[in-house]
């Protein structure tokens, strides 16, 4: 094993400009080493390069150029990773679209991003063609493994006129207006974060990186490109059963680096598999996406003292991660691990009532710096709400992203997460605007009012529950089933309430006339079907 310092000497990470540089700069160094290992299927850096070049040359031949959007729908297989790499090699911007989304959401994303091309895994081709045909969308659809690619050259495509302000990717997140928002990320934004990772991590090259997240959850970008940037192997966690039983994945894959939501590790703990010898291969365990209980990091540390644990926090709008924290000691039992210190180059101000707050007080986290996204795709209304210009102490104006997250900065400069300003929640790492779910419920004529809350079930797992009122003559039970069916048609599975509770009376209101969410929680907690 070679220390990372030698890689840095060889490829000078700070010179990276484009996201694909993390692959391009290393592909010849590791030409015969594995870049992806997916069970029986594996591919070396050299073979992946040629295969992605063919697809990139095909895209270029079909007119793709910098800033064009190319959607891709694929499972976490070699085909999926090849597609991302090929899109970047062509200079275009990749937009991950989950094959698990309902047709209506897929159609909305197509209409929003207006892709030049769609790269689709064989499994989803018929469905995507049907959606496009029924809605008169004239988009070129490519089978990423189709025979037509063989006629294209496997040599490096030549793309001119690229700049660091070109679009690298667009990732859609839940939106409070009832429609998802596409976060635009420039190469400059994401490369700044990944270049910083070389300095922050002290890891060896050619490690085995678990790819736990879906493509549409941005920790994927770290898993893929920082892995390739260090000559590592991507090992996709790509069976649905792995989400229920993550041990089945970890026990056979000899993972060295895992970037995951804490609930995956909690599941290992609850299934009494935490002390299994196969987990000892994990050298770097990075948590993100949820509050991290110190009890969990303490438990892990007591079993694997040589494994370095980290808590990472950030938003898609700030290129994945704005704060990071190395868990170097046993922390107070029952406490929550801090989100840590800002990534170099990221500036955070805490603001309350239009004023900067001092250390020790809580304020909304407002982020400035190289990693801040330019805004939401084709959505000036939402962009102007969240991205504003602020004046710093020296009267210089900065473009800033208002995260909606409430943080507290302690005297040592370490940040602690304190909740949200609005009703955005995170459920198993997915960022969800409860308003988006309520708007879908309200789209049914029979629904007069709707409120959505998150409660814990008997397994201490977060569950989304909807409550509605109606004066319809349709039976409550029948209407509830109809609402659930509509929700499933419009929203991804992770956003669908596990139950909806109907009332024939108006929902309780507070003094301001708003739906009283405390009382809605009481209704939900009193329902036997939750």
């Amino acid at each position, binding site marked *: 094993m070679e220390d990372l310092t030698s890689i840095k000497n060889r490829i000078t990470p700070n010179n990276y400009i484009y996201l694909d540089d993390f692959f391009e700069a290393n592909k010849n160094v590791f030409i015969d080493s594995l870049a992806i290992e997916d069970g029986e299927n594996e591919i070396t850096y050299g073979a992946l390069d040629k295969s992605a070049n063919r697809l990139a040359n095909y895209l270029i031949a079909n007119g793709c150029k910098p800033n064009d959007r190319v959607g891709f729908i694929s499972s976490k297989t070699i085909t999926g990773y090849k597609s991302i790499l090929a899109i970047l090699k062509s200079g275009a911007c990749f937009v991950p679209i989950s094959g*698990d989304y309902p047709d209506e959401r897929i159609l909305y994303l197509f209409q929003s991003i207006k892709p030049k091309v769609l790269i689709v895994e064989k499994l989803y081709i018929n469905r995507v063609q049907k959606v496009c045909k029924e809605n008169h969308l004239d988009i070129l659809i490519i089978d990423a493994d189709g025979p037509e690619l063989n006629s294209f050259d496997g040599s490096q495509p030549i793309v001119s006129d690229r700049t660091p302000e070109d679009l690298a990717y667009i990732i859609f997140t839940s939106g409070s207006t009832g429609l998802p928002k596409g976060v635009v990320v420039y190469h400059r934004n994401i490369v700044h974060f990944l270049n910083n990772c070389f300095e922050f991590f002290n890891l060896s090259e050619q490690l085995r990186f678990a790819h736990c997240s879906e493509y549409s959850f941005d920790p994927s970008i770290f898993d893929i490109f920082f892995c390739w940037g260090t000559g590592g192997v991507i090992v996709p966690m790509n*069976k*649905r*059963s792995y*989400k*229920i*039983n*993550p*041990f*089945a994945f970890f026990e056979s894959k000899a993972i060295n680096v895992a970037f995951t939501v804490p609930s995956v590790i909690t*599941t290992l703990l*609850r*299934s*009494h*598999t935490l002390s299994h010898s196969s987990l000892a291969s994990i050298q770097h365990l990075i948590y993100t996406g949820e509050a991290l209980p110190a009890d969990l990091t303490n438990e892990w540390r007591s079993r694997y003292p040589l494994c370095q644990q980290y808590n990472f926090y950030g938003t898609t709008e700030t290129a994945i991660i704005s704060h990071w924290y190395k868990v170097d000691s046993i922390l107070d039992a029952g406490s929550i691990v801090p989100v840590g210190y800002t990534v170099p180059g990221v500036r955070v101000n805490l603001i309350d009532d239009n004023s900067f707050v001092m250390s020790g007080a809580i304020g909304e986290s407002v982020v400035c710096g190289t990693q801040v996204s330019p805004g939401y795709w084709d959505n000036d209304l939402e962009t102007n709400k969240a991205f504003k210009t602020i004046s710093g102490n020296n009267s210089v104006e900065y473009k800033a992203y208002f995260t909606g997250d409430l943080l507290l900065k302690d005297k040592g400069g370490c940040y602690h997460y304190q909740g949200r300003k609005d009703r955005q929640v995170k459920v*198993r790492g997915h960022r969800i605007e409860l308003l988006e779910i309520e708007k879908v419920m309200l789209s049914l004529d029979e629904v007069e009012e709707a409120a959505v809350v998150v409660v814990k*079930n*008997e*397994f201490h*797992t977060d*569950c989304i529950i909807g409550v509605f009122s109606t004066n319809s003559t349709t039976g409550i039970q029948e209407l509830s089933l109809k609402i659930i069916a509509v929700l499933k048609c419009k929203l991804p*599975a*992770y956003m669908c309430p*596990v139950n909806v509770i109907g009332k024939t009376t108006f929902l309780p209101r507070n003094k301001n006339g708003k739906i009283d969410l405390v009382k809605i929680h009481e209704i939900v907690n009193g329902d036997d079907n939750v």
Partner: protein
Amino acid sequence: MSNLENKVKELIVEVLNISADKVDDGLSSDTIPEWDSMGHMQIIIKLESFFSCDIPRNEMAMMTSEEAIVKVLSKIVSADFL
């Protein structure tokens, strides 16, 4: 198929609301999109309530297919179901 196997299949199909054309011999979380982590919890709750049993925590995560569920339940449910 034993009584237990039949009942387990029936309960999974009911909880996940699986359409008839997707029901085959070996239901599994890898092949049924509705069987995600939340669907899994709903299946466990339904099984515990129907068979009046407590499924050990260390077994729950392993029960990701019809076959695996039957294997665990055959050790803990009343003989009437076997």
